[in-house]
């Protein structure tokens, strides 16, 4: 129990750190974000003093409050779910835009993570089992190379090959918004799958190596355990020894990795979404960076961080639950 409480305290600390960073980064940065924005906006048209005033209010720079008062106001706003207004879609609240986009990210990332996890674990198990065969000696370096490829570049190549040259998949978007209305229709779902296929494939390819190599290394260690030798000696079938004896114990590092990957779904595919112009949170971030929509950038960071922290906490608890050694060691 002491272990659990310590972990909870730690995560409270981490959430506080993230929120505080989010508050201080804009205030520590050199230059004046309002002036920068006004400069940017005045190239497109005249900026009235009222607009300038609104911008200052949005950045919380209009007040003569001390930093502390500003900080507590900011915390209060956060507790009310008030993350500020977007500049690109003025005056839509940021939280509303994120709410629309996050569903796309979670769907795309969720499917990709599950596929990649299952496939990666299976490949790792087989690769370790068939160790030193041609399969294993080919697979490991190949996977190693795959993991070194910058995945946004892989995404570019995929897009070029399959969408531009072969014309199999659309070049951008989350669904065919010109012809199809969103809804639970066959057409819409088909269109969504068609649009999500390439981004998902990229995500699977780029994350496969991690699952596989972790599984392989863990499996190799497990295979040299006595109980595996014993199981083999008893003449149990190969599949039973492989999955029920070895893999079941070797999968532990990957299970916690899986919980963390679930949290990374929200923010782990930023670049893939950007390349495919997929209407998720990553694409929203790209646009926010291009438009210098600071409230949006900060809020997206906060949402991603909260998701990651939540998942890490879950992974921690899961590990404590699954591996009694952790519990005993730390509470002792």
């Amino acid at each position, binding site marked *: 129990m002491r272990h659990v409480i310590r972990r909870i305290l*730690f995560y409270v*600390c981490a959430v506080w750190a993230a929120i505080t960073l989010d508050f201080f980064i804009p205030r520590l940065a050199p230059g004046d974000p309002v002036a920068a924005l006004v400069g940017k906006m005045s190239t497109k048209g005249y900026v009235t003093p009222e607009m300038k005033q609104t911008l200052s209010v949005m950045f919380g720079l209009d007040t003569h409050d001390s930093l502390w008062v500003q900080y507590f106001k900011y915390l209060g706003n956060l507790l009310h779910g008030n993350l500020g207004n977007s500049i690109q879609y003025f005056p839509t609240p940021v939280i509303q835009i994120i709410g629309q986009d996050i569903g796309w990210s979670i769907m795309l990332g969720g499917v990709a993570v599950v596929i990649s996890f299952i496939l990666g674990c299976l490949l790792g198990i087989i690769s370790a089992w068939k160790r030193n065969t041609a399969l294993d*000696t080919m697979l490991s*370096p190949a996977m190693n190379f795959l993991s*070194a*490829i*910058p995945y946004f*570049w892989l995404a570019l*190549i995929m897009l070029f090959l399959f969408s531009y040259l072969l014309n199999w998949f659309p070049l951008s978007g989350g669904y065919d918004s010109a012809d199809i209305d969103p809804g639970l229709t066959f057409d819409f779902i088909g269109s969504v799958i068609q649009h999500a296929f390439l981004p998902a494939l990229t995500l699977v390819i780029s994350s496969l190596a991690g699952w596989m190599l972790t599984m392989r290394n863990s499996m*190799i260690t497990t295979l040299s355990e006595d109980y595996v030798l014993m199981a083999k000696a008893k003449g149990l079938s190969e599949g039973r020894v492989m999955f029920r004896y070895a893999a079941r114990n070797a999968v532990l590092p990957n299970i916690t990795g899986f919980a963390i990957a679930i949290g990374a779904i929200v923010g782990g595919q930023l670049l893939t979404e950007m390349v495919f112009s997929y209407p998720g949170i990553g694409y929203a971030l790209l646009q926010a960076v291009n438009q210098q929509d600071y409230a949006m950038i900060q809020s997206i960071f906060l949402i991603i961080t909260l998701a990651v922290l939540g998942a890490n906490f879950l992974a921690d608890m899961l590990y404590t639950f699954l591996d009694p050694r952790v519990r005993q060691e730390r509470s002792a």
Partner: protein
Amino acid sequence: MQTQEIPRPASAAPIALLPSDPLPARFLNVLLVTWRAMTTSRKVAVGSAIVGFFIVVGLFGPFFMTINPNATSHLFIAPPSASHLLGTTVVGEDIFSQLIYGTRTSVFWGLGTGLLLTLLSVVVGLVGGYFGGWIDDVLTLLTNVSLVLPALPLAIVLAAYFPRGPLTISLVILFTNWAWQARVLRSQTLSLRNREFVIAARASGEHTWRIIFFEIFPNELGLVVAGFVSTTIFVVLTWAALEFLGLGDGTIPSWGSILYWAQQAGALGGGLWWWFIPPGACIAILGAGLSLINFGIDEIADPRLRPERSVKAGKSKKAVA
């Protein structure tokens, strides 16, 4: 790969160095170990050759370039030819020249940032691990918090607020990624701090900083080198990602900024493969080279991962016993 020779433990120099050696001898020893690792493991050899190639190109390549990477011309979006080996951009810049100059930027900022990152994590890890007490508590808390905060989104937020340029990116990456390596080194230091040679050094009145950096640090050198290599892979990838997002200085040619301009100009929709394939391929090959080195180091450090017979021999012994 199966024929690969792995140094037998008896013939290889010890990775953990004897603390009694004088400093130059230790340094020589490190070089010797590095050289042996490079020549005996094929993975490390191939990886080092790849990385070495990029370093040489980055150092000397630009001297052979006759075309200024930022010079525009009237030859727009020309496919690769003898005069423009990798074609030109939409404003007529020579992509091959950009790539060579970009190699200099990307490789050296990447290696430099990797080095700084390693240095920072060495200091945090060793100081925390050696001193213990409240210093360690504070540093460990900082490390762990930094570990759970998502690095790329934080880097994007930071880079978006600060002035564009290589220095910003370097500092941002430094700030968001030092923790992992620091944690590894801290636990290693914890296990070393009560060894006899450290206690002896303390008893003979050596200065604390000297104990940390001249007695303990050399014993962690293998770990630090492995950490440096994997950190550098990560730095190169993150660097390219941030520049691809437009958070770098677009006027300085680098692999990431070539990709950024290609994306901005719609190179993909226009089928200008010669614009966006080469820089990404360079990143991938350099990354593969570095991870080959790392794989080799891992195998030397953890015998169980080696692809040879020693494990089977061990097993049969166990079976006999």
